[in-house]
């Protein structure tokens, strides 16, 4: 099925989210929509999928006019949309999750669910997209990639002819991304029309046949993926050449006999982390590589006092350090940027200012020092380049990249000695990335000790001075320098 959209416009209040966007999704082809945060990618995809309605413009399916007033309506016409967030309900079975929108049809007399039929249908849907998941599997044991595949199976269960995936890989790691990409190829080979939005150019270049670049809600170009390289895509997305120098130059940390800022010895935390030892000196960025579940998250939880150490020791500036809770960690100079900014990093309904000074509100005794808070917030907004209409604007009104800058600002507001960064640029566009990298480097040059965990390999290589590789909870390799290291050199130790 060919899905054609012509000159779509969409405004949200004063914000023009999409302006004059035209796009053609071909039968049996994968079409990627790329652009920075706020470029209008999701808006476009959601207009195609009926989740939102364009203010003007026209769409057609195989030449027949198409104006879905809801996702339900779109599904009816053969266009299925998979949302960015994972919407699996863990208290239901896999089969129930797949047919959640349609359970009534599978109910027998008195509304009793026909479980066997449902399970068989669900298994067929899973087999059809080529994933090896059994409907009897326990949902709690599945990883995010597998959950995403179940969502795709759900979308496929209505027998659509076109499938739209909105940032389906944003929270997935290597293996999980591969699984989703494979499903896309499988469906493509069966003649499905596929549209997807992604931040990862590598995925786009492997998976897409066609691609459309958007910038600031405007259409930039549509092209065959074979005709364009990563550099060119980057340039058109941002409007200038950024690939050179997106990672600021390293400033070698001064060789010093002083005790390292953070020393980790044979640390074991929770079920995931069994043994890791390393130092982070002042002025240095140490990277942590590893698949999800390899232990980086657990190590962070241990260092910030969110989980106790099962074994091993921590030292801060040469002194033994036993954080009993995150409060103790912050008080001893450890700042922490968590992996999930939505649920752990910031309070969306609160203002930029409130979030920035949250970790250590300036105070005279018990009283809040409002004027000082304002000046601290103003400085941080300027330092990190947070784009907000005012310090009083609620964080949820900002773009993903700017929200992440607020979380970084919250960490820097306490003037920490050690900064822990867990995927600092997850779901962040290139422009904001650049600024976050600049600030991280600048703070390292000023003597901050930084521990960086990331699923983005180029980021780890580009930003770290040294790198520790974790595999199944054990540190297996340390790279003393990353000057000549390639991605696969590291990945081979991870898997």
């Amino acid at each position, binding site marked *: 099925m060919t899905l054609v959209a012509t000159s779509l416009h*969409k*405004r*949200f*209040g*004063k*914000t023009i*989210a999409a302006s004059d966007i035209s796009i053609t999704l071909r039968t049996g082809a994968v079409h990627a929509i790329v652009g920075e945060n*706020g470029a*209008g990618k*999701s*808006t476009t995809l959601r207009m195609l999928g009926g989740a*939102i309605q364009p203010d003007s413009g026209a769409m057609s399916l195989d030449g027949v006019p198409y104006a879905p007033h809801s996702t339900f309506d779109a599904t009816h016409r053969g266009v299925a949309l998979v949302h960015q967030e994972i919407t699996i309900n863990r208290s239901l079975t896999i089969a129930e999750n797949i047919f959640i929108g349609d359970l009534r049809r599978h109910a027998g007399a008195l509304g009793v669910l026909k479980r066997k039929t449902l399970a068989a249908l669900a298994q067929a849907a899973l087999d059809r997209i080529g994933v090896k998941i059994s409907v009897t599997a326990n949902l709690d044991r599945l990883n995010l990639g597998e959950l995403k595949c179940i969502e795709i199976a759900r979308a496929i269960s209505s027998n659509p002819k076109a499938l739209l995936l909105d940032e389906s890989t944003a929270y997935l790691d290597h293996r999980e991304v591969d699984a989703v990409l494979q499903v896309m190829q499988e469906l493509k080979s069966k003649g499905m029309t596929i549209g997807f939005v992604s931040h990862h150019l590598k995925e786009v270049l492997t998976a897409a046949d066609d691609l459309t670049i958007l910038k600031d809600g405007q259409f930039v170009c549509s092209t065959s993926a074979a005709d364009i390289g990563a550099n060119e895509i980057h340039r058109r997305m941002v409007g200038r050449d950024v690939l050179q120098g997106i990672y600021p130059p390293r400033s070698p940390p001064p060789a010093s006999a002083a005790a390292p800022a953070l020393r980790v010895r044979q640390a074991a935390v929770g079920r995931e982390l069994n043994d890791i030892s390393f130092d982070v000196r002042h002025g240095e960025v140490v990277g942590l590589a590893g698949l999800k579940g390899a232990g980086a998250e657990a190590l962070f939880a241990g260092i*910030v006092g*969110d989980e106790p150490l099962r074994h091993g020791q921590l030292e801060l500036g040469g002194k033994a350090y036993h954080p009993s*809770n*995150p*409060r103790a*960690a*912050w*008080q001893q100079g450890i700042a*922490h940027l*968590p992996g999930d900014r939505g*649920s*752990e*990093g*910031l*309070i*969306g*309904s*609160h*203002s930029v*200012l*409130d979030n920035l000074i*949250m*970790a*250590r*509100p300036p*105070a005279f005794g*018990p*009283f*809040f020092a409002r004027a000082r808070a304002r000046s601290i917030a103003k400085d941080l907004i300027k330092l990190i380049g947070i784009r907000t*209409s005012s310090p*009083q*604007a*609620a964080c*949820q*009104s*900002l*773009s993903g990249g700017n929200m992440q800058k607020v979380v970084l600002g*919250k960490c820097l507001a306490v003037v920490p000695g050690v900064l822990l960064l867990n995927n600092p640029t997850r779901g962040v566009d290139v422009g904001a990335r650049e600024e976050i990298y600049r600030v991280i480097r600048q703070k390292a040059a000023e003597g901050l000790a930084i521990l960086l965990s990331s699923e983005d390999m180029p980021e780890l290589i580009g930003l770290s001075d040294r790198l520790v590789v974790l595999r199944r909870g054990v540190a297996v390799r340390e790279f003393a320098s990353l000057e000549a290291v390639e991605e696969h050199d590291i990945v081979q130790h991870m898997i």
Partner: protein
Amino acid sequence: MSNAIKAHRPADATLTREGGSKGFQIDRLRRSFPAVFLAVLIVVFTMMSPRFLSLDNLSTVLEQGTVLLVTALGASFIIMAGSIDISVGAIVAVSALVAAMTSDTLGAFAIIPAVAVGALCGCFNGLLLAVGKVPSFVATLGTQVVYRGLVLYFTRGAPVEIQDEGFLAAYSNVSYGIPHTVMIGLALAIVAWAIFRFTVFGREVLAIGGGERVSILTGIAVTRVKITMFLLLGALCGMAGLLQGARTMAATSQLGLGLELDVIASVVVGGTPLTGGLGSITNTFLGVLIVTLLSNGMNMSGVDPYLQNIIKGVVLIVAVYINIDRKKIGIIK
């Protein structure tokens, strides 16, 4: 800062499906809703009963509303932090009993044991929630029964009268035409407002309501803040119990029965959502006035007493229906 939060309208295209100037106006309307609603109530009741707006009645309203006001001030902190306390009425009863039992010997100084016992009850609630990790609704559902049970046990169901002249003079007399109860209530309202507006504690309460996990990971002493806010509510309930005892000149096991429902209604009608993270003491003050005026106004205008509860319930639901910004709350449970 509450203004900053309320002034917000999501502008990000990916966050909201509607908006535009219309949404903005609705939002502004919503923010001023409690005040508008209060004004409408006053106009309607004034038309129905000329005596409604008299100084005499105004004084009565304030006196009737003081116990509700004092307890709702404390409950505001709890609700803004996303918790709830339904043992309010029971703590009021316990404190009134303590005040009655000690007023013979301590006179006006019975305030000390009354408030202390209230604070103790509140502190216990806070410990159950913050340390025992029992959800506040369940914890206070249990302690409510225990606290009221304590009153029944010690009184054996019989009222304990308060006769001490000094006590009654301090807490139920009138000076300069204003009942002492009202003076105390307004003074406490100003203190609570200042605590909320000017202290770090007030901000931490809102932060916990806005995102507890975020607050913990950012190093806020969540346990301490929670215990403190329950202790604060307990102390205010202690004060309310004392004032109520002084008004009725006795402590009974039925004192403050069902008060918690009026308290929660006041806070919510004032515009503070039960999910926490938003709100202010000013909101609560308006909510208390609305709830109190509604009862008083219906009495004054001679509405059938057997009909009043129905009207009251409907009005409260309508008020909250219009008042709540569903976009910000996300999921209504």
